[in-house]
């Protein structure tokens, strides 16, 4: 993984650049999140290919989710997901109590309205990773108090 500071700065500039372009009239704001998400998707696809090159095959869906929470998260964000929950019907909730992209922003409610911008890329990252392992999903994120956040993964049965 590239230097951490580089990733953080590049990520924030990517988000800022996207919204700046939107303000200058190239497409409306809602599109930005979608665009960021699809960039994350493409990156996630590539990353998972790289990270799994020396791993054994996965047993099942839960095994894959565990890999995302541990190895994948550690490589990208330098820590594991703090809590993984599932209803065993295709919904997983990944909770990170100190999400790397939010830790330097705020500890509480300040800037809360800006948080979704900085989560879209990561949602795509998860979705892209899963997709390349053969799981189709929808990923959404939720923040109630920074720097904690929750990612909800809904598996789409094929």
């Amino acid at each position, binding site marked *: 993984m590239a230097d951490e500071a580089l990733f953080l700065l590049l990520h924030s500039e990517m988000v800022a650049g996207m919204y700046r372009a939107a303000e200058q009239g190239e497409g409306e704001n809602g599109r930005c999140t979608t665009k960021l998400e699809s960039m994350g998707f493409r990156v996630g696809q590539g990353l998972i290919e790289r990270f799994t090159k020396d791993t054994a095959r996965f047993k099942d869906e839960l095994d894959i989710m565990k890999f995302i929470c541990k190895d994948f998260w550690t490589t990208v964000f330098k820590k594991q997901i703090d809590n993984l929950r599932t209803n065993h019907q295709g919904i997983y909730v990944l909770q990170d109590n100190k999400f790397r992209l939010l830790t330097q922003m*705020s500890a509480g409610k300040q800037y809360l309205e800006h948080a979704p911008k900085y989560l879209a890329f990561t949602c795509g990252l998860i979705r892209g990773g899963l997709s390349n392992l053969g799981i189709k999903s929808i990923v959404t994120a939720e923040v109630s108090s920074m720097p904690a956040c929750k990612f909800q993964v809904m598996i789409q049965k094929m």
Partner: protein
Amino acid sequence: MTIHNLYIFERGGRCLFYSEWHRRRGPGIPQEEEFKLMFGMLFSLRSFVAKMSPTDMRDGFVAFHTSKYRLHYLETPSGLRLVLNTDLGVPSAREALQHIYGNLFVELVVKNPLCPPRAPVQSLLFRQRLDAFVRSLPYFGPRNPQN
């Protein structure tokens, strides 16, 4: 020993951050004016002490003191200036200033996408962490209230 206040100026002289702890007596001028005069004084002092120096001086000046207080100064390579006023019981606050710059300012302001560069710092997280750090310093404390 005690800490009076802290200023952070950017290269151009704008005050990005100000906080005070045991400052019992105000300067009697508007705050904007105070920032301007403080920066102006540092600016002149810095260039003049460099001229007076017998050998080439890298660090510039690091502190000065009067009969009542000591002013600690740190200038980073990027031109950020941190100023900490304490009473005379504090010999050097250089490490504290380095910490404020490296571990707080860089981490929470420079790396915070919601703090535009070279603009006054609005982040509450930075204010909280800085306050906690300053209060944890061994020479923080309202003891010895001579001035």
